[in-house]
């Protein structure tokens, strides 16, 4: 009973694991960490001052090499580290009612403080620390190595579509169609990004993505989608407008990620490896037990687990 079960588990798991590994390996992922690289050398000793100085132009352009062919769609992510979106104080600091209903604008939850009311005493929509700390670095991409033919203007831009990066339920239900940002980021201390007060929340997809809080301090969030194929060896330029403060806390890495997605999603060998390891372990165990049974033939019944 035991040996067949173990062998069966092994037999099932190893192929699944191999399939997962293959799928994961097919995914092409380019990670570019720019949190220190985009800070000028003379400001490296005081990155916080750099990022908080509004007068410095924080645009930074870098070239990335595409290692392997990347088929469309290519997903763009930003990646943060040691950013505790799962801190209880942070993740509770929001008002779901306010996001959905215009009538509930005043329904500023206790937890939204200190980002509940603007200086003029009016409620902030959307209130709370999550919205307030909205990620606001922007990226733009262009092909570099394709020289301009026909003599027209510079490297052709790679357009990044930001539509559909949130979940349909968020656009449809969680974020109201006639809720508009009000009094947002007009306090003395500006946290993160601004919102277009003319667009309803149901169209502010960056906010939706940001407000679906990450589970762990190291996380990626979808920035946009690029409907283009990239070939191996191609160089692309990425222009980062570095304005989000990830410098005042330790380990605050920032990176931009380009990745394709397979049927399992992004690149992560863990699942495949886990399957293979567990499968192998079961298989070996089955083998070991079989040997034991062969050496001590009477003991087959020992393995009856009922």
């Amino acid at each position, binding site marked *: 009973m*035991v040996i067949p079960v173990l062998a069966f588990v092994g037999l099932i*798991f190893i192929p*699944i694991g191999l399939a*997962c590994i293959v799928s994961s390996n097919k995914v092409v*992922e380019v990670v570019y960490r720019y949190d220190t690289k985009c800070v000028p050398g003379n400001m490296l000793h005081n990155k916080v001052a750099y990022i908080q100085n509004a007068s410095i132009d924080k645009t930074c352009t870098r070239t990335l090499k595409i290692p392997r062919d990347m088929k469309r769609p290519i997903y763009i992510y930003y*990646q943060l580290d040691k*950013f*505790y*979106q*799962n*801190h*209880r*104080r*942070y993740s509770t600091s929001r008002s779901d009612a306010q996001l*959905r209903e215009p009538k509930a604008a005043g329904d500023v939850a206790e937890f939204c*403080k*200190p*980002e509940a009311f603007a200086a003029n005493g009016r409620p902030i929509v959307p209130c709370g*620390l999550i919205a*307030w*700390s909205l990620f606001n670095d922007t990226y733009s991409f262009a092909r570099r190595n394709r020289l301009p033919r026909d003599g027209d203007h510079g490297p052709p831009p790679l357009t990044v579509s930001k539509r559909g990066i949130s*979940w349909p*339920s968020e656009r449809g*239900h*969680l974020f109201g169609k006639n809720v508009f940002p009000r009094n947002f980021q007009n306090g003395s201390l500006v946290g993160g990004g601004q919102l277009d007060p003319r667009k309803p929340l149901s169209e502010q997809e960056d906010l939706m993505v940001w407000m679906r*809080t*990450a*589970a*762990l*301090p190291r*996380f*990626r*969030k*979808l920035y946009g*989608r690029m409907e283009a194929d990239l070939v191996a060896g191609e160089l692309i330029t990425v222009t980062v407008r570095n304005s989000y*403060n990830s410098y*005042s*806390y*330790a380990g605050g890495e920032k990176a931009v990620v380009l990745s394709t*997605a397979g049927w*399992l*999603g*992004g*690149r*992560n060998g*863990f*699942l495949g490896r*886990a*399957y293979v390891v*567990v499968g192998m372990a*079961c298989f070996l*165990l089955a083998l070991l*037990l079989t040997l034991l049974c062969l050496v001590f033939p009477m*003991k087959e*019944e*020992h*393995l*009856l*687990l*009922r």
Partner: protein
Amino acid sequence: MRASATDTDERPLVELAVVTPTPSTSSPAALATGPPAPAPGFSRAVRCNAPSSASASGDGAYPGNAISTTKYTAASFLPKSLFEQFRRVANCFFLVVACVSFSPLAPYRAVSVLLPLFVVVSAAMAKEAVEDWRRKQQDIEVNNRKVEVYDGTQSFHETEWKKLRVGDIVKVKKDEFFPADLLLLSSCHEDGTCYVETMNLDGETNLKRKQSLDVTVGLSEEHSFHSFKAFIQCEDPNEKLYSFLGTLYYREQQYPLSPQQILLRDSKLRNTNFIYGTVIFTGHETKVMQNATEPPSKRSSVERRMDKIVYLLFAVLFTIASFGSIFFGIKTKAELNVGSYAWYLRPDQSSIFFDPNRASFAAFCHFLTSLMLYVCLVPISLYISIEMVKVLQSTFINQDQNMYCEESDKPARARTSNLNEELGQVHTILSDKTGTLTCNSMEFSKCSIAGVAYGSRLTEVEMSYGEIEDVSGQMHAAKSKRSVKGFNFTDGRLMNGEWAKECHRDAIEMFFRALAVCHTAIPVSDKDSIGMTYEAESPDEGALVAAAREFGFEFYHRTQTTISVHEYEPVFGKEVDRTYKLLNILEFSSARKRMSVILRTEEGRLFLFCKGADSVILERLSKDNEKSCVANTKQHIEVYSEAGLRTLALAYRELTEDDYAAWNEEYSSAKNSVHTDHDAAVEKASENIEKDLVLLGATAVEDRLQKGVPECIHKLAQAGIKIWILTGDKLETAVNIGYSCNLLRKEMEEFFVTLDNSGTNAPEGCNQEGSRMAPYEHIGRKLQDARRQISLKGTSTPFALIIDGNALTYALTGSLKDSFLDLAVDCASVLCCRMSPKQKALITRLVKTKTKKTTLAIGDGANDVGMLQEADIGVGISGAEGMQAVMASDFAIAQFRFLERLLLVHGHWCYRRIAAMICYFFFKNITFGFTLFWFEAHAMFSAQPGYNDWFISFYNVAFTSLPVIALGVFNKDVSASVCLEVPLLHQDGVNNVFFSWSRILSWMLNGLCSSIIIFFGAINAVLIQAVRQDGRVAGFDILGVTMYTCVVWTVNCQLALYISYFTWIQHFVIWGSILIWYTFLIIYGSFPAMISTTAYHVFWEACASSPLYWLSTLVIVVTALLPFFLYRVTCSLFNPQHPERVQRTNSKNW
């Protein structure tokens, strides 16, 4: 068993205290005429026949006769039962947590804490309510019973019990229960006597005679009450069943009242057509209600250990909460520092719970929060689940067809469900003998008259020594004859008047006469059967009177002063009626071990007939007795008791008028004395007449073994259970019963520890020089000798210890206590004879406290009550001898042989089930609780729960509750037949293998492993990359759902792996629970986002369409199950447990 001459039984322990006399200041004779000012404690004033106009004297204040035994009333139910519920530490903790959860400290919404608590508490309260409702129904039934009451004018009319009031005159008819405590005024008998059965009060089935005062005897007509007016001054309500003091003021006279005139509520009128009585105590003031006390509540050792585990979990909870709080404090304090300034948390303006400037206070608040967060470590539903499981288990016990007794139409009954699993851990059984091992239906089987033995039938004990084939023919012949209850005697020399031809004709005649008159039985003329049947105090006595009838001396009528017998007169060869004038009855007591009657024949001769234990009778013989006759009788008695029979010796004495008159004076004055040493004086007086007796002979009464007893004892012995027999019987009888029921076997080495200096010698080991030494040292030396012998012979031979009550008095004192117990523990069987009920209880307590193992006491009579209540488990035999033992017991079975199934099958199952269930409970809660902890550790210890609120609160209630209950109710590691075939399995329970600390801790460790595998598996599988083909990543919500799915699968599959017995129920609940989780996820997810928050649409939208979600569930669950799987494989390879071994042998046979 009580009141027979061979028994040393006394009143049961619990009632020992109640016979103490009330203060003598209130002696009724001392009272002045007319209603005096009430003495303290004697304030009750009853105006007979004027209940309604009684307001003047204030007896309108006495409560009505309605009773209520319910714990709660409609109004008090809520507060009282809530109080009961929150007395439990765990529930109280949850309540505190629920209260705190309304504060902003709560990591999740308060309602999600409250709801499970509400469910659990209301389920427990519903159970209480149902139980109380049943009691209420019973009360209503009792309160609405009908009784005839005098309406104050002319006639009696029916009314309900509850409407009775103090002073009412009632008429109670034959076989009706008395509705309240009554003063007997008159009865259908001219002398004002009546008979009552007090089975509901003290369990005694014999009839008791009550007698009204002479002045009220005349009130036997309905109309005579028209002018009846009387006043009673008596004691206040109390619980003493056998005492009553009061005065009746009637026609300007006062008369003292005694218990003789009191008819107690719940006893039954027998053999009397009707009585009139006046109500004295009503409702809760009646003596029986005053006596009603809750039996001591017992808790099983498993449950006691469970409490410890709950405390352990509390400790774990506090540890991880404070661990988290310390880290949280450190992190919070550092939040304002340059370099770790988490600006997005606004530490500069944070609320007090996160204030970096007051980090220690924040840490304290965090501690409270984490207590709430990890509340699921302590299983809220554990107690209620266990209670439900136990109730269901009890139902199984109650409905087991194999424990149903057809003859008596009685199933086994678990009177309490607390102790089911304790049955599987029984280490020592302390058993009563009479009525428990034996049927307690006595049969007259042999007698010895004037030195000649009569009676040819073989007894069971003799048969068990072999030669069953030889006697079977004889048995058959005996059976074909007319069977008479209590009579199983065949000897042509005595039957059908043939005794007249024997040479000791006169002695035989006297012998039969003694049988016919020397007793306290009451004849009942039964229309259906031929002749008389008898209501006797003890079955032994009944058997003797019945035997007399069969020999031709039919006792047929008794009055206060006469005994009438149809006697066969051999001279004329026909029956003559003789009436003897009954002068005195010297009653039986366990100290006296004999009873006598003194009567005057029609010819005017005075005789004293005495029957009693051989030892006391033989001491009192006159010197004129023929030596050979005495010697022969002695020898016969010895032979009889070796054959397992209960023996009595009979003797008589002819008295002269002068002697009698002198003695009677002495006796009456002793009898009428009111000192505290009244009993001693009476006994001394009796002693003076019971001497110079002429021996008539001896009787032997057989108490047959119950069906299946030897087999059952053999099985229990095989199961390694130590069996002690505690009996009031004689050493020889006990030893022989021991042999016949397999407790003592031929190969056993026996130690006799006795202080028996009366005539009969102990079979061995009791040498005469021993009795000359101080008894204490004597016993001590004997015990030492036995110990030495055991250590010499080692464990190869089983030992048996036989000790008698006298020796035990010494063996239970001082330092001997320990050496006695050490010796007893080394012996396979222990037989204690000549025990008093108190000693039985003492021994039980000693064994229980000294061995620290589970003891089970089994008995059937009121004398076993103390033992049953003292033992860990009390099992009552619902046999012939009343309900007292059953009322005090935890389990009731009809026959001893059902004990085998009760212990080896039900005990085994219940123990395994409860142990597995509790272990599993802790496993599943640790698995779940620690995933929360690992998550919190990744969220800066901010007490952020890893799951949605409702996931957490439904974990114990919805997704994991049913399978664990199914495990507790239905799991069978081995089948019933295997349990019985391999009794050694019982040792697992005795050694507590399945609920040992190592077992519990390894389950907890397993939970910890599973939580680690689940958490780290999940976070590594979803990590940071996209989890779907559309490039979306997993947030807090998806990780939570993934982890939670893994937890639900793991704990349920773990159970499936553990369960060894699958029916569709198990499949249904296990896979059903997993299905419930998905269904819940879908339904809950489709609620408005206000309610479902992070679970909104998460399953349909994000998880179900992601292969990663399903694949990671599979690998994580399998991996989390592997440790347990490997553990089981290793165990079965290297160290197979009994059940697994049995399963193997079983599977071979397939």
